[in-house]
């Protein structure tokens, strides 16, 4: 597929991304099936925009984030990225990350970085903060006499102090460790950062600090984010647009306020009605989804959501709905998107 045309401020355009994990069994380790963790998703991200990627466990959002930057090798699809590093004129050229050779892929990694969920596991416990932060620069041979000053500046921008460079990760609290992780992701001055559940493991008040920090840094460094999370209130706060995933597929994508007030997919509707709201006066009218989340190694036929959908019809059992733009800027994958009158969260 040719590179995207039209909107000029798009920097990431994902088309039909797939990531299957083979299931091996038997003596000779034959592949007997596939876990379709990410199954043909398409979305895009603009400059200075935060795209939230939400869904429940097993929906593939974390895998999608990691496959995006080729941390896992994709099984199919294209990831078009407007890279500054790989461009000839410094303006940014479109490249397909899935088709780059090793050298180019390594170079483009300066433009896309990642923040991880686990503040303990994402930092090597045997390295000092200084080592952790300079490692990306070492990999790309960018260490010189100005590096120490640069790192100290970076630390201060994320709210830590210069003397922290000599410390080890275990000497910090969870929130501080996340800040170190954030600083590391900024070390090479990227254009896009994939945030993989960065606040899920933090206390409520630290979450707030970290989210504020991420927003500030977005302005300071001119960044775009793909924000993967399962907490819908957090995602809504930080995202400009949100994409909802279910069992490896994308079911809805829209501006965040639009998604919450006017969902077009039954799963989104049910998901939002399930969120416990901190408003004790509101009487909950919950839409319960019966049963368990579908199994990505053996998904239902037709629309994956049909066994739990209260609007399901015969067509839903046999035909996979296409992900299409039903209203301007609002995509969904439901056969009856135009007919259904779904309930959002009202103020």
């Amino acid at each position, binding site marked *: 597929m040719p590179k995207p045309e039209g909107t000029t401020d798009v920097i990431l355009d994902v088309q039909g991304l797939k990531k299957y994990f083979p299931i091996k069994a038997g003596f000779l380790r034959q592949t007997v099936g596939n876990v379709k963790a990410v199954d043909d998703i398409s979305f895009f991200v603009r400059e200075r925009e935060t795209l939230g990627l939400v869904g429940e466990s097993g929906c593939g959002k974390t895998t999608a984030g990691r496959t995006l930057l080729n941390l896992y090798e994709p099984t199919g699809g294209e990831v078009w990225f407007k890279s500054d590093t790989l461009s000839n004129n410094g303006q940014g050229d479109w490249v397909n990350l899935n088709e780059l050779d090793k050298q180019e892929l390594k170079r483009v990694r300066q433009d896309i970085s990642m923040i991880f969920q686990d503040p303990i596991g994402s930092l090597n416990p045997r390295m000092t903060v200084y080592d952790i932060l300079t490692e990306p620069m070492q990999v790309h041979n960018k260490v010189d006499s100005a590096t120490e000053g640069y790192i100290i500046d970076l630390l201060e921008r994320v709210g830590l102090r210069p003397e922290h460079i000599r410390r080890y990760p275990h000497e910090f609290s969870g929130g501080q460790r996340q800040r170190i992780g954030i600083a590391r992701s900024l070390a090479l001055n990227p254009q896009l950062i994939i945030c993989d559940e960065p606040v899920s493991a933090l206390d409520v008040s630290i979450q707030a600090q970290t989210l504020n920090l991420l927003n500030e840094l977005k302005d300071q460094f001119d960044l775009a984010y793909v924000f993967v999370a399962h907490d819908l209130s957090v995602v809504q706060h930080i995202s400009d647009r949100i994409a909802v995933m279910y069992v490896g597929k994308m079911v809805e994508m829209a501006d965040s306020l639009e998604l919450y007030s006017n969902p077009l997919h039954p799963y989104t509707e049910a998901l939002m009605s399930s969120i416990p709201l901190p408003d004790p*006066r509101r009487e909950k009218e919950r839409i319960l989804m019966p049963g368990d989340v579908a199994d990505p190694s053996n998904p239902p036929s037709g629309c994956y959501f049909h066994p739990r959908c209260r609007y399901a*019809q015969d067509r839903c059992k046999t035909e996979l709905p296409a992900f299409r733009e039903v209203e301007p800027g609002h995509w969904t994958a439901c056969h009856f998107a135009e007919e259904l009158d779904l309930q959002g969260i009202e103020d």
Partner: protein
Amino acid sequence: MASPNSKSEVEANKPVIPKTKKPKAKRERVPNDLSKNPVLLEVDDIQIQFAVRDGIVRAVDKMSFVVRRGQTVGIIGESGCGKSVTSRAIMNMIPKPGKIAGGKILFHMPEADGSVTQVNLVELEPDGNEIRKIRGARIAMIFQEPMSSLTPVYSAGFHIGEAIKLHKGRVKRRTIGNEMIENIQDAKGLEEDEAREVAIGMLRKVGLPKPEQRVDAYPHHLSGGQRQRVMIAIALSCYPDLLIADEPTTALDVSIEAQILELMQELKRDTGMAIIFITHNLGVVAEMADEIVVMYLGKEVEKVNTIELFEQPQHPYTQALLNSIPRIGKKVDKLATIEGMVPDPFNLPSGCVFHPRCAHMMPGKCDVVVPEYAEIMPKHWTRCLLHDVSWPDNAEAQALKNKDGSIPNRLPSLEEAHHA
């Protein structure tokens, strides 16, 4: 891309869809007046200490609250505030090196004949028969870590309790059904096949697929999320008088969490069970709890019914907490945060332990005087020097109180704090 159909085709294909209910106006929840219900559990000035290498940590410092029959009390706070330890204290299951250093926990156990027996749970032997009769059968507990080997009482009942304590291996040979059916029989006096039906229904309600098959499965065959749900079902299958839920849904997906919360509400309605619900999720506690206790560093800082807590918080920590969570539909540029970090327990601030992080700190007062826990409004307790009654009674404190201006006697809003 879907190709456009002709109008007649569209009409013919139009499916029959159930009408969705769009509420016209916001339905208001009527707060339950539970003040007349008999008391079920009385936690009175409980103190829990941990002896660690550097000294003694006061994990819980004189906490008191009451749970009535049919009431849900929520305990909220962040990590390290002591909420989990409190719940374990009720079951006398505090892990070493912790111990209960003072106070009482009175369980007003309802008997079959209508009378009530008072038992001080603190005085019972932690491993004795008496507490095991209560644990599981009358007071059940569900944890965040489902069925880990560190939680000896994930399942219930006197008979199970012994098996678990003596021989962990034997636990694995009991199926989910074994445990639940016995509990249900004990609680409801049903025959085995009837109890089995009830058990299957309960498993279905917690969202376990194919419950007819799962009832005969062993817990270790299930995935983590499923085990959590089974643990909840087992705990609820003994129809306890009191359920202690320690972050039961934190690890679950929102849709499953919704199912579990509905189930707990339903059971509460059916059986009149009381719940102590410990969580850090303000949305969950808003929905589930009738009354809320807010904890910070081992102390209660506020206690009042749910609606009043959310609408009229009187402690700056509660206010800050409520303002720091992102709310759906209300997008703000910057979330209000609580500055600083939870202090080191061996290096506590002087005066009010929250003062270094408080938006309304009054210098010369808050860093000197320790506020007392007081009832500042009817049935609304807090400890904050912004309120007159929270000042200690001695002469020095009273002199300090009126120095440099009087006490506002209410919690100012955060905007007002900016201009202080």
